[in-house]
């Protein structure tokens, strides 16, 4: 039993990793049990891509003066359709409800039981999210791709290497998304009514991430603002990489900025958590 030492300060790093990987595995299995619920989700995502594809087709068709090789916001129509499809595909992979789950645990006082256990709640949350993302990738994102890619005749990136960079960028995006959700969930320590905040975040995130409209459609100052915020790392950055619009040094800096946000937000989460649990008074369960 030496591997299962409970006191974290006496636990070997390998044992810690095994402990946390266990949470990822459990989360994967939990979502596997509910996999049937995701079939209608595939329909929803197909609707999102279809609706938006029509909207942007209409937009491009409404520019008669340059009907042939028309570009809007630096996109040709096929690029635009690819943008929509890839960004929704990426969203299907990284979406999770960490914020809601965490807020619920805090409001119900269940978090007290987590606090007395020998692990770090933030790390557990991240590994659970990784388990969920693994499940989503196999049984949600993949089916969506099987439907959407042939339906809209979505082509690959200009260079095969970009598959790898896009995947890496989406992985970083997923980490950023988890950290943001964790921070929002932590607000439940301070706010009585967190549901409105979570709703507002859910509504704005697709917009801020660039899922609804790519930032190159916006005026310059909005693009500058977006570049200074972490949200475009969720969707806009990986999809632009896929389209080959971030090449060479741009590609490297895009990935580095994403990584910096992932680490920075993780540290912010640590800090907020440490402050919050010290001052919190929980309702007895």
């Amino acid at each position, binding site marked *: 039993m030496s591997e299962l030492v409970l006191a974290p300060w006496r636990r070997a790093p390998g044992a810690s990793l095994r402990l946390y990987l266990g949470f990822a595995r459990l989360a994967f299995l939990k979502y596997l049990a509910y996999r*049937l*619920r995701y*079939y*209608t*989700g595939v*329909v*929803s995502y197909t*609707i*999102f891509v*279809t*609706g938006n594809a*029509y*909207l942007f*087709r*209409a*937009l491009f*068709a*409404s*520019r008669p003066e340059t009907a042939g090789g028309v570009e*809007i*916001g630096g996109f040709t129509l096929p690029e635009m359709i690819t943008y929509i499809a890839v960004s929704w595909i990426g969203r299907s992979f990284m979406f999770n409800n960490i914020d809601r789950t965490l807020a619920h645990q805090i409001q119900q006082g269940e978090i007290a039981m987590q606090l007395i256990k020998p692990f770090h709640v933030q790390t557990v949350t991240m590994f659970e999210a990784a388990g969920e993302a693994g499940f989503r990738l196999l049984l949600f994102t993949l089916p969506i791709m099987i439907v959407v890619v042939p339906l809209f005749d979505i082509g690959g990136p200009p260079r095969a290497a970009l598959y790898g960079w896009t995947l890496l960028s989406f992985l970083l995006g997923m980490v950023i998304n988890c950290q943001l959700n964790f921070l929002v969930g932590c607000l439940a320590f301070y706010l*009585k*009514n967190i*549901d*409105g*905040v979570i*709703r*507002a975040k859910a*509504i*704005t995130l*697709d*917009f801020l991430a660039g899922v*609804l*409209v790519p930032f190159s*459609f*916006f*005026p310059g100052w909005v693009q500058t603002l977006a570049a200074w915020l972490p949200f475009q790392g969720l969707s806009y950055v990986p999809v632009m990489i896929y389209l080959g619009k971030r090449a060479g040094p741009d590609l490297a800096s895009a990935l580095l900025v994403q990584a910096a946000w992932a680490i920075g937000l993780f540290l912010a989460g640590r800090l907020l958590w440490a402050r919050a649990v010290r001052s919190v008074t929980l309702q007895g369960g």
Partner: protein
Amino acid sequence: MNGIQLAAGPQRTRWQRAGWQLQIIVAYFAQFLKTRLVYRVDFLVDLAANLVAVGVQLATLTVLFDKVTALKGWSFEQVLFIYGFSLLPLGLFNLISINIYSFAEHYIADGNLDRVLLRPVNPLAQVLFESFNVSGLNEIMLGAGIMGYAAVALELRPGPWDIAVFAVLVPSAALVYTAVFLGLAAVSFWFEDRLGLAPPIYNVIRFARYPLTIYGRGVQAFLTFVLPFAWVAYLPATWFVGGPDVRRWAMCTPLVGVLVMALAYTVWRAGLRRYTSTGS
């Protein structure tokens, strides 16, 4: 005991029964308001979240129309009007009928329908009026504001006849929403495993707010005749902002609402008859 009496017994006339049911519904609403007024902050937070949603939609429209002068012939103000209009029936539906959306889960799986069936009031009326979603009121206010702004920008001069038509079209469109989701709820009597069809269908709503002509013929036909969301915003709103060729279809909205509702209610009745409780 000349207030609410215990049972709508057979000795009463049809009108007395209807009046009595109405009394119950008013009592339901009063009860609900009392529970909501405890959480006044929730209402404000909800309003803020709704403002954010509308803000995102407006920003999207603004950016798109920054690139073109018209979207398939529809101007920014026309599209804005249709969007604002769409929030009115949606708000009415969310206010009154949102219970029907989670019917399969809350009433069938959790067994709450048993409680409903034990009472001598129309089961559908009970389900619809058991709780209200105040967030609907926000949508109605915001929708009216946006529609009003678009109407002024378009220099619309609505006459008394237009206002009467408007007063009929909005509840009719809300009826279409309720009927669609009632139909879905009714189907869950047969497929007790939660079908989960409601979320994808709810997600279609956001695309039914654009002029339907931006979609292909197949999608247009689907939204007009199969999943009739063409009748919740675009077609009724064309009475005010559409050309003469689409305009005449707007007046069919009440008919469509009643038809779809009759169909959904028939399925609902049939489902109720074959309902057996989960016993939980």
